[in-house]
């Protein structure tokens, strides 16, 4: 181990500390701004430690129905997308792993190529499609479009996990007369839990992050999700209400931070499983 690259003494440590400050100070700033009184927020020089600590901004947010609704809608859309993606991607990934065919390899190439298409480029045509389907202003339109974006990556990722499960399990099940679908659900899926967890987490995070679909397909405030809601509600006015913006932001960031702390290991294995194999 000691032959790996060593932090080169003092300069290395200073660089490391500057980097950590760069990464963490903005989050500290976000959080303390949300605990400051409005008059302290617009003070220059700014207070690096809030002198008059207050919960007033949080109380205001909790009493504001629309913010609670944004959070709820975001949770609904992200969970829906995660479920749909898990279902579709695990089936497709299994098929690509086990039943190789020309059709399968065409599908695989097609899925990989979607990573290249910019969403902004296709969103106007997507808008026309949803308008024809009467899905504008529905959260379902967000679930469908987000799933279309997350399924390809998830399929490729979960295929890698299935590839690591020995085929002899299926052969044994077949000899015992177990139907294919039952083999998949009662033997293979339980063994792929880490992979399913990883793609579920990525999908949830990506759906939680959505802004573009939400500002384009949702025009009613009651159906808005978090990112779109914050941008529309608090940034439309002439001067921004930074106390409110930072407080809502903390609420939007917190679920992601909890996920990272709980599942950091699973995410890292998931992310790198695909990349290291190439």
């Amino acid at each position, binding site marked *: 181990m000691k032959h790996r690259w060593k932090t080169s003494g003092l300069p290395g440590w200073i660089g490391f500390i500057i980097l950590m400050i760069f990464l963490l100070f903005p989050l500290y700033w976000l959080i303390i701004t949300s605990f400051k009184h409005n008059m302290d927020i617009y003070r220059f020089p*700014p207070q690096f430690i809030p002198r008059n600590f207050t919960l007033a901004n949080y109380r205001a947010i909790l009493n504001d129905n629309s913010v609670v609704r944004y959070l709820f809608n975001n949770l609904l859309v992200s969970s829906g997308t995660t479920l749909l993606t898990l279902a579709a991607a695990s089936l497709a990934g299994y098929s690509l792993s086990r039943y190789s065919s020309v059709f399968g390899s065409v599908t695989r190439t097609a899925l990989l190529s979607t990573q290249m298409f910019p969403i902004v480029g296709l969103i106007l045509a997507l808008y026309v499609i949803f308008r024809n389907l009467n899905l504008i202003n529905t959260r379902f339109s967000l679930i469908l479009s987000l799933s279309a974006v997350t399924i390809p990556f998830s399929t490729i990722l979960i295929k890698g996990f299935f590839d690591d499960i020995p085929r002899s399990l299926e052969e044994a099940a077949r000899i015992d007369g177990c139907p294919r679908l039952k083999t998949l659900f009662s033997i293979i899926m339980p063994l792929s839990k880490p992979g399913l967890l990883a793609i579920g987490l990525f999908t949830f995070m990506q759906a939680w992050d959505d802004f573009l679909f939400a500002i384009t397909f949702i025009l009613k405030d009651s159906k808005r999700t978090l990112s779109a809601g914050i941008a529309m509600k608090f940034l439309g006015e002439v001067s*921004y209400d*930074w106390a409110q913006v930072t407080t809502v932001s903390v609420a939007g960031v917190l679920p992601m931070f909890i996920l990272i702390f709980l599942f950091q290991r699973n995410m890292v294995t998931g992310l790198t499983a695909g990349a290291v194999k190439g």
Partner: protein
Amino acid sequence: MTRNSKTGDRLFGVLLLVPSILIVGGFIFLPVIQSVYYSFFDFKLTRKKLPLLWNGGANYRGLWESGKLQNAFFITFQFMLIVLIAVFLIGLLMSLAMNKGRKAERTARSLALLPWGTPTVIVALLWSWMFQPEYGVVNFLLMHFKIISEPLGFLVNPDTALASVAVAAVWRQLPFMFIMLLAGLQGIPAEMYEAAEIDGASPRQSFWHITLPFLRNVIRSSILVTIITNFKQFPLFWTMTGGGPMGRTETLAILTYKNAFVNLNFGVGAAVAASWMLTLILFSLLYNRIFKEAEY
């Protein structure tokens, strides 16, 4: 195995793919094809009933003659390059420094991941707040350390706007690059370094001849992800600058969206979209070709 079970296998394999094909086909491939199709038509959302009027390449010509398409390509490319270089170099140094797995470093590692979990719009808002001209903390710090003498309007000044958005992008993407490279480093067997040292290799030599070659796959995929992410970056620009000041942050994504949903001119928006989709596809084909040739 009977013939019957073979056709059964084939059918089962195809059936499993159906849900994904329907969703991805219907909501990605179909709109991509339609976008390209619309780009040759006079298609404005303001008209209720739409007889699409073929106008040949007028959308493309108009964009080219106004110089907006070239400008957007230039800005997008500039942005992508700044972010890529910063993220890759800093990420590489950071992963080399933290590749030890001591307990303190593991905690630092999960803290360092937090920006990656911050939703992009919140990243944009947070940095807008810190870059704020009158009360912003960045101005205060830079003035305090005597780097600048008077407050800067980072996002409204044409000279600093693009770089300021790039800082926000680097902040969010650095953890991803770091984690990918770190995982790659940890996959390198320690014996390689031991053997190199016995053979008298200097640390620099082992870096160029062991570390980098082993990291090739990881570097290839994380650089591609970074390039694509920044090429299509939308929320940061839309929230922080909206394409201003004076078009200095008007990327391809912003130009597409403005034409389609602000000017309500789908035809022109689609023309912008089609030109950069084509660029991305050509680029990624070329990219994989280059990396394949470098293989040995």
